[in-house]
């Protein structure tokens, strides 16, 4: 393990809660509906993060708790029943309904598991109900996906057939590319979790080899292990290096020779390196500060340092699972400063003191930092853009080079803001 410096920080934070992951999960599984049981704040959060207005009727909503629901839990359960009945009558195409717990529902101890159990009986054969918590008192941002996937595992049937299971939401086109490459390597039985249809859950068992596509799935991994799955230890498929190691680890698990892997992916690597050049020219030697939000920060730092030659000032992450991130941390340069958790004010003090060329941060902080003359990249874009794999390495670099390039074009660094 490289000699990285681990730090922990607590205090006021500036991150999304786990509910936000509904924004990409509902797109991944178009036959599922996500019903948040929460407050007006929850509803407002999701619509603000998701740009909901473009949908005629989105496949997510909030059962907003009102005063009378707080008075007695029995009534709240009945009310939730009523809301679910109305919803299913209105949206008969829904196959899986996620009951998503929130901060208020957790605090009043609304038992969504029992509600889901009851509803499963009533709607047997029509709609399946699962529950998980996306609350901000327990989860940040991408951890919501971890909760949702974990909730689906009990529904997955067992099978001892050997297969490769890609775990974590990917953009569809990236997923297709990965599957094609794996097939070329000779791995034929490949499935994805979450699947594109919520009802087509992969079967799992002792010959299932799990390859993670996203670094924020700690709980899902634990439960997959309990079901006998083998977890392939690898860095994450961001950038050429990460993706190459990722393919190699999978090949090794399937006893496919390294030579074969290199034979298949070296043309991809060559063209990706070519494509990366112009971005590297901009990023090289620039100093990077990553604020915590998506849990992709460590992988991004590794890519931006090792392949784009950026200097790392500080790598923030909302949560660090050292076991899951072991391979990534090994690839980081010595003395990388990792900070788990956040005290947003103190961290912003460090941002200002260190005078970075680029800061990766949430949307709430981006414009204020730009107004101070600091270039930013907002991290929510990483979870919405196809950034995984060798062919996307240049696109990933482009997300970071663009703000710097723009800054070069618009030479005046500090502007009067309104």
């Amino acid at each position, binding site marked *: 393990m490289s000699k990285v410096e681990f730090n922990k920080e607590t205090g*006021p934070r500036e991150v*999304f809660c786990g509910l936000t992951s509904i924004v990409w999960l509902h797109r991944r599984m178009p036959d599922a509906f996500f019903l948040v049981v*929460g407050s007006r*704040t929850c509803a407002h959060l999701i*619509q603000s993060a998701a740009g909901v207005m473009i949908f005629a009727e989105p496949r997510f909503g909030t059962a907003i708790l009102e005063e009378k629901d707080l008075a007695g839990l029995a009534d709240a359960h009945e*009310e939730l029943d009523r809301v679910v009945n109305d919803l299913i009558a209105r949206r008969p195409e829904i196959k899986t309904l996620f009951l998503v717990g929130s901060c208020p529902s957790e605090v009043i101890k609304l038992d969504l598991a029992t509600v889901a159990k009851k509803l499963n009986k009533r709607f047997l054969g029509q709609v399946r109900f699962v529950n998980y918590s996306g609350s901000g008192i327990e989860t940040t941002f991408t951890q919501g996906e971890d909760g949702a996937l974990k909730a689906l595992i009990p529904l997955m049937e067992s099978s001892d057939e050997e297969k490769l299971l890609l775990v974590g939401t990917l953009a569809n086109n990236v997923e297709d590319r990965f599957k094609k490459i794996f097939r070329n390597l000779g791995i034929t039985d490949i499935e994805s979790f979450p699947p594109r249809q919520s009802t087509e859950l992969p079967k799992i068992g002792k010959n299932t080899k799990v390859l993670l596509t996203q670094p924020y799935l700690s709980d899902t991994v634990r439960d997959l292990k309990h079901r006998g799955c083998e977890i392939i230890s690898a860095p994450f498929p961001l950038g050429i290096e990460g993706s190459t190691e990722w393919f190699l680890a999978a090949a090794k698990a399937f006893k496919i020779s390294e030579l074969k892997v290199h034979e298949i992916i070296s043309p991809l690597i060559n063209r990706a390196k070519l494509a990366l050049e112009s971005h590297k020219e901009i990023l090289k030697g620039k100093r990077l500060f990553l604020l915590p939000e998506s849990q992709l920060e460590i992988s991004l730092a590794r890519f931006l340092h090792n392949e784009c030659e950026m200097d790392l000032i500080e790598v923030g992450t909302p949560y660090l699972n050292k076991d899951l991130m072991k391979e990534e941390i090994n690839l980081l340069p010595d003395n990388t400063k990792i900070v788990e958790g956040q005290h947003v004010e103190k961290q912003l003090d460090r941002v200002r003191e260190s005078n970075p060329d680029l800061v990766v941060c949430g949307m709430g902080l981006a414009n204020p930092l730009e107004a101070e003359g600091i270039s930013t990249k907002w991290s929510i874009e990483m979870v919405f853009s196809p950034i995984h794999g060798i062919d996307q390495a240049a696109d990933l670099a482009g997300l970071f080079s663009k703000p710097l390039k723009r800054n070069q074009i618009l030479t005046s660094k500090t502007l009067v803001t309104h």
Partner: protein
Amino acid sequence: MELTLWTYEGPPHVGAMRIASSMKDIHYVLHAPQGDTYADLLFTMIERRGQRPPVTYTTFQARDLGGDTAELVKKNIKEAVERFKPKTLLVGESCTAELIQDQPGALAKGMGFDIPIVNLELPAYSKKENWGASETFYQLTRTLLKEKVSYSEKISPLRWKEFGRRPKVNILGPSLLGFRCRDDVIEIQRILSEQGIDTNVVAPLGASPDDIERLIDAEVNICLYPEISEASCEWLKRNFGMEYTNTIPIGIKNTIEFINEVHEKLNLPLTNKKELENKSKLPWYSKSVDSNYLTGKRVFIFGDGTHAIAAAKIAKEELGFEVVGLGTYSREMARQVRATAKDLNLEALITNNYLEVEDAMKKAAPELVLGTQMERHSAKRLGIPCSVISTPMHVQDVPARYSPQMGWEGANVIFDDWVHPLMMGLEEHLIDMFKHDFEFVDGHQSHLGHTATNTKDILNSDKKKEKNSKEGIIWTESGRAELTKVPFFVRGKVKTNTEKYAILRGIPEISDETLYDAKAYFS
């Protein structure tokens, strides 16, 4: 429990944030979990603010709940006061903190700070954003001025005469995330100044706690957005005798009436009454012959109370439209909206459910919709032109150019904003009528976006072009499949680039790999 897919208003603490962020030298400590920080982006992204909202979130977590969350609150309050040195501190809680009952306001008051502390109790499970903004502004005004109540004399609106100076008024209500507030304030100040009236304080937008303490230096309050400032104006009237205006100066008639009302309250003679009619282009533009076709246009109106009521009056009396639907999501303004609707022989729609609004819109079969950004989307789906007249805010509602809704320039803006989509509507009709003529085959994209264009048609026409490709390049199945996965808005460029690359390299067949080779080559 209420099923909500989308909501017009946020929770009440977002209303409090609007007041805090609008002002200077104020800090708001919000007892809330980490996810609630999303609200910052409303200000930094939608309003493009270059400063963070002055808010500290206590960020309590599940593991804190068994322990001492009250200590966490105090720690955050202490840090916030030391770091930001506010002149007034707002302390409150969001929905979750309300349930754990730490009473952060009371805690803050016991910490011995020598600044005023406003304890905000905003019931998150029964109230909404505008109420929260109004309550916050009211509590702030009350806290900062209550000591002066006992020794201040009632303020006579005529006292400017004794003082031998121009009359002074306060403009109350404009805030961040309010519809075109930034420009309305400029317009109203300009109008008042032309009439010989000075502005004492504008609040909350741009005001500091010191300015709030100066409110009583004015004679009269202008209640510009009753949703935000009526409660405060009423308190100032009750305790200091300050009169406030009721007319909202949106549209020509209302602007003139507003000027009259201010003059009457101040007992200031109105000398330029005749001129007022000619301050805006709206009356003449509306009268000019080409506006004939506007007569009796069916218009459906939905928005916050203030803007919906004003829109109904302008539509009917100043543009000659027929109002076929009127409603609001502001429950606090329901009574006034119902009264306005009744005058138009309509039943007002009072709802927070946008699907109900869309249904009502469909039934009313309007030719123009005046609504929020949500009605813009509903209208787009129904193929009806729309202009946005009200919050909730969208980045489009914060235009770079001067674009008020109030006063003379506001009337000009309204004429353009409402009539242009209608003209486009007419154009739409013409396009539809002539679409089979060869001149209209290409490039006449509907302003309503893609509603009129079938995606399949695009793909089909793409395929046709592929076959006709002069260079004899063939797209293989895998290449074509990959191309369809590219987002539509860049698909054309990707296609052209890939073909260019294929020609360059002498590749006769384009596979998915060629596409990625080309992508790498051109990036």
